[in-house]
């Protein structure tokens, strides 16, 4: 009966773009017409509300729902731009122990009846918060920067997805996808940054999207708008939109940002450097 898909957006390392990716992917999925809720699991350090532009509308949060202090529908904030997009914020004040295994299971179960996609924005690290965020996942989106510490941490997280999720424990498969963010094609081309192929070869999970380092993503966060809504024609927005279509089962090929400068400007940039 439950057709809903739970997606965890995870990375191990902090600051790689989990929250902006959750917001952008969530909005992109909602733009395909699906009922979507993004859930902030970063208890104590909530930020998804800010990136979604809903920070002044938070009344109740995930912990309130778990503790029975609020009903799910009271805590959920409906997006003002897309009425099939919702947010369940994290608590800012409680300590992480407030997040319980049974509590999370109950909330996710209740949400499965109401939404097509539930996106769980994982906290950084490999502690309880991160394992609870991935616990019920059907799909794991591993956000990775083309940089050694991020790739190493992603490898750890993939190991956890394969062992600590409910699906893994039931011998079922969690679909895993790689989302490369902060990619700089010029530096990758010069051999100064790991290429997408390098990261793919090392982590060996299918590629979902490559989002270049971009002003549009920062601007979107500044304005409290997922980039797919704020700058829909930007490269980043297209990457997330294609990622969303891929998640819904469409056969979309992944575009890898290229160094588009002409041969002469490349030559002179090298000479100058």
């Amino acid at each position, binding site marked *: 009966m439950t057709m809903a898909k739970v997606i965890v957006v995870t990375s191990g390392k902090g600051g790689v773009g989990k929250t902006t990716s959750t917001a952008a992917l969530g909005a992109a999925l909602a733009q395909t017409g699906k009922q979507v809720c993004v859930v902030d699991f970063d208890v104590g350090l909530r930020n998804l509300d800010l990136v979604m532009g809903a920070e002044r509308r938070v009344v109740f949060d995930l912990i309130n729902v778990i503790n029975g202090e609020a009903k799910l529908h009271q805590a959920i904030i409906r997006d003002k731009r897309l009425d099939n997009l919702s947010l369940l914020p994290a608590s800012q004040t409680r300590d992480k122990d407030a997040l319980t295994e049974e509590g999370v299971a109950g909330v996710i179960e209740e949400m499965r009846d109401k939404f097509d996609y539930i996106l769980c924005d994982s906290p950084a690290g490999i502690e309880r918060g991160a394992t609870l965020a991935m616990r019920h996942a059907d799909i794991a989106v591993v956000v990775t920067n083309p940089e050694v510490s991020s790739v190493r941490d992603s490898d750890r997280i993939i190991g956890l997805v394969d062992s600590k999720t409910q699906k893994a424990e039931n011998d079922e498969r969690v679909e895993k996808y790689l989302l490369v963010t902060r990619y700089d094609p010029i530096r990758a081309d010069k051999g*100064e940054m790991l290429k997408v192929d390098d990261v793919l070869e090392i982590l060996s999970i299918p590629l979902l999207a490559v989002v270049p380092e971009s002003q549009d993503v920062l601007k979107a966060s500044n304005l409290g708008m997922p980039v797919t809504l704020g700058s829909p024609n930007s490269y980043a927005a297209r990457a997330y939109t294609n990622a969303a279509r891929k998640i819904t089962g469409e056969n979309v090929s992944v575009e890898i940002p290229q160094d588009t400068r002409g041969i002469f400007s490349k030559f002179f940039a090298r000479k100058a450097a």
Partner: protein
Amino acid sequence: MRFLDFFRNKGGSAPVARDRLQIILAHERATLSANPELLATLREEILAVIARHMPIDRDKVNVSMDRGDDVSTLEVEVELPLEGGPNPLHVAAE
């Protein structure tokens, strides 16, 4: 030479990053994922084989593994009971 460098992609640090990652991750995957269950299984099976031939104390069997870049070692340490001492198998059988 600069002109030739333009056609060759050399001098970048990314290949070093890739190689270092491949080495460290091969090491970590082996120690982090395979080890706990593998060691417990090895310990039980080694214990069973030895116990078939001589009495041993279950707590005095130690199995450890160390994976290195070049050499990996499996260390099995079994402390045998003193000769002429009480035979735990015998005692248990009685």
